[in-house]
């Protein structure tokens, strides 16, 4: 029990080449008999003390009160820096999202709820106005102002404000941001029917003066947000330590401290959970689920995520240019079997591009049934009997992606009139082809996953299936017209109907082999009570001690 007796919260707070780092080198040498120096026991782990009161790395996290409620989260990967507006990936969002917030937020199921704005409305000209919550302060104690909010949105949207934000892709249609008396008005190019969905997922608020007085390196190592936790220790690539923000507008979270770390090895994450070194672990693979469930110190909890997994088929290349052939591929793959046997049930069969619960999902569209005979008949009818195809899959990007692709390729290959092989590719290499500007340069048949953080069907249909979509594999005028109509209408009910029609059409056109909705599977310590969110964000501020 050495570790249990003498170790508290990890105290690692390295940020730069500071005294501790020097001592580390010295200590390393000492380990082989060369060290002969000693420090004074001070603890100024921070690299540059600031007088603006913003939260910085220090050794405050060393505190280890016996009644302290500390939560430790282990993910698969750490952040790519702490700038909340200079990233576009989930792990970083989870880490910075503990300290920063947007105008709107989401509940566990993905519904829109208040954030820094307590009221929001659409104005007569189609703009949106957010009324800011009173009395909200940044972690440095300064009040949040409409100017800070306007600056934050501009920093994302306009390149000349400071950075080229990858998030501009989502908020790119913003044309103007006007701060007013306790409110901010945002205008778009034309009418934007999903403005509130966009701001519930994007647009974390930073303090203008803090951003302008620090460089990118500093902003990526320190935080000054309004969220329920404030960063007290940042060790790039290793861990981020937070403490509860007592002045949080929603009330301080139950946890006193929070530590976010990562382990790329899933077995290591599970071992950490079973050794009671962490409270929440992400992405527990199906083969590890029984090990967690049989332990008395932790349990498994899962939630249907906003990510859909599918096989893309390019419409302009034989044999996939045939709608019958594409439908045949859907009949050939036994998705139910894949979900049960490869994913241990952690998935839901899909029938259309829009997931259940998302705006525009059509409940009347059923999944393609597994029917090899019908698949063979359609292949014959398409005139492509005897064809040889290759399915490309990324390695390790999505939950059991290679195994899923292998099963699908085997099932297609078992048809009497189609041969299918599998090609595994590193994700960076595959995605380079998938994102090629011209459709002619994209893969012909590949597995892909798509997360829809806005919970709106248009955010899947438009980029992936409209003729001008950045990742499209389809060109269909009827679908384009429906999507254009959905984009322009200001009547929400009409829009839902239009998107449902688009989903039905997409099902029939079968540009994808519709596989499944990925589940987020977490291992959770028996010592805490916590429910996961549908958008893959982790919210330890909602966790309580059992």
């Amino acid at each position: 029990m050495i570790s249990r007796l003498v170790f508290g919260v990890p105290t690692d707070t390295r940020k730069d080449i500071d005294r501790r780092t020097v001592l580390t080198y010295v200590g390393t040498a000492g380990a082989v008999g060369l060290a002969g120096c000693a420090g004074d026991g001070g603890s100024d782990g921070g690299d540059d003390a600031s007088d603006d009161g913003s939260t910085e790395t220090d050794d405050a996290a060393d505190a280890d009160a016996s009644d302290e409620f500390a939560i430790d989260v282990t993910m698969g990967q750490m952040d790519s820096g702490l700038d909340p507006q200079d990233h576009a990936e989930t792990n970083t969002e989870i880490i910075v999202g503990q300290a920063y917030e947007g105008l709107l937020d989401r509940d566990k199921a993905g519904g829109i709820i208040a954030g820094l704005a307590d009221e929001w409305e659409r104005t007569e000209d189609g703009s949106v106005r957010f009324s800011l919550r009173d009395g909200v302060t940044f972690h440095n104690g300064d009040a949040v102002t409409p100017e800070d909010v306007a600056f934050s949105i501009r920093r994302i949207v306009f390149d000349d404000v400071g950075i080229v934000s990858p998030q501009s892709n989502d908020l790119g249609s913003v044309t103007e941001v006007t701060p007013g008396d306790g409110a901010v008005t945002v205008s778009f190019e034309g009418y934007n029917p999903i403005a509130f969905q966009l701001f519930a997922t994007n647009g974390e608020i930073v303090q203008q003066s803090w951003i302008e007085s620090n460089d990118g390196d500093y902003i990526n190592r320190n935080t000054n947000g309004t969220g329920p936790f404030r960063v007290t220790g940042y060790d790039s690539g290793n861990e981020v330590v937070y403490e509860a923000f007592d002045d949080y507008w929603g009330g301080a979270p139950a946890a006193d401290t929070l530590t976010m770390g990562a382990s790329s090895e899933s077995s290591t994450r599970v071992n950490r959970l079973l050794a009671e070194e962490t409270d929440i672990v992400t992405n527990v693979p199906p083969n590890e689920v029984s090990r967690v469930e049989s332990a008395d110190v932790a349990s498994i909890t899962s939630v249907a995520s906003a990510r859909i997994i599918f096989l893309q088929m390019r419409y302009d290349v034989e044999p996939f240019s045939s709608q019958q052939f594409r439908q045949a591929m859907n009949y050939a793959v036994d998705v139910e079997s894949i979900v049960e046997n490869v994913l241990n049930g952690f998935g839901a069969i899909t029938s259309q591009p829009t997931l259940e619960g998302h705006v525009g999902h059509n409940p009347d569209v059923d999944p393609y049934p597994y029917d090899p005979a019908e698949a063979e008949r359609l292949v014959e009818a398409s005139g492509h009997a005897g064809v040889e195809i290759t399915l490309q899959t990324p390695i390790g990007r999505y939950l059991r992606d290679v195994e899923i692709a292998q099963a699908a390729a085997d099932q297609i290959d078992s048809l009497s009139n189609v041969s299918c092989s599998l090609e595994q590719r590193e994700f960076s290499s595959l995605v380079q082809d998938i994102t090629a500007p011209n459709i002619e340069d994209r893969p012909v048949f590949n597995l892909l996953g798509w997360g829809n953080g806005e919970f709106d069907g248009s955010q899947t249909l438009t980029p992936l299936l409209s003729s001008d979509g950045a990742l499209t594999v389809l060109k269909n005028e009827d679908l384009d017209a429906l999507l254009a109509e959905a984009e322009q209408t200001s009547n929400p009910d009409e829009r839902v109907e239009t998107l449902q029609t688009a989903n039905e059409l997409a099902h029939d056109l079968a540009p994808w082999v519709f596989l499944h909705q990925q589940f987020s599977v977490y291992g959770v310590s028996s010592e805490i009570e916590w429910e996961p969110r549908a958008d893959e964000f982790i919210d330890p501020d909602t966790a309580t001690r059992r």
Partner: protein
Amino acid sequence: MSVGRFVLKRSLQGVGVVWGVVTVVFALRFVTPGSPINAVAPLDASQETRQAIAAELGLDQPLYVQYAQYILDLLAGDMGRSYIRGQEVVSLVFSRLPATIELAVAASVVAIVLAIPLGVASATHRNEPVDYGATLVSLGGISTPNFWLGIMLILVFAVEFDVFNTSGRGTDIGDVVLAIGGSEPFVGALLSWLAYITLPAIALGTYFMALITRLTRSGMLDELGKGYVQAARAKGLPRTLVRYKHALRNTLIPVITVLGLQLGTLIGGAVITEAVFSWPGLGTLVIESINQRDWPALQGSLIVIGTGFVVVNVLVDTVYASLDPEVVNE
């Protein structure tokens, strides 16, 4: 040639090696599929957004301009800024380096402390149970994959018996050194450090230990059969003196060479062990940088690893030269 000139010559050769590493790694970015833009931008980013990000990262410049700029910056001590993390590569790399050195040194200590006595005992008790045991241990060490060993060590000693931590770095050696003169109990800091370092050090050092054991054994057997040993024994020198002062000293020359080379390998090659134990070292950074095509971070890491390798080799050569002065003149 003097030892000084010998070291200088080796050092200059090392500079050439590091420059070669820089150039090859720089060239790799243009022949490797994938782009850092895909790690920065969302998949559905427009071509305009992609171009703006490319311009911000300097990827829109011609190859020779990027290379020349990189070399000039490097000479000024600037390794650039990570494409993905937005942080200075110098601080990023040097924040990871202590963990890697710490693990490599700890693994080496584990290996040396066990291997040399085991090798000597094996050679001096040839064809006895001690020899068979040592051979079994060393063969097992060589043939056991360290990722498997790491997982087994975690399962047994961290999960089942709860003696060590499963992963992470926790307390570093710097904290232990600070505790010597500080207010925190030194023993507590030391135990805390051991709780994190022990399992990865064993996992990483086992292969190394097995290798050194075999090398020491065969070297000792070789030396013990030579005439000078018989002569020393005939002169009446004690068996222990002959073995440990004469035979072992000569045995250590090839062992030190392998030690040095392996230490360099450990600094750059502890990737799998770092992954299994979530050890936040350079190996992890290299893998992350490759996956994300974060070229500045990758180049910075490899330059430091390459330099470390060169420095270790120069040190080994120097020690080798001091043990065997003929090397200097070869």
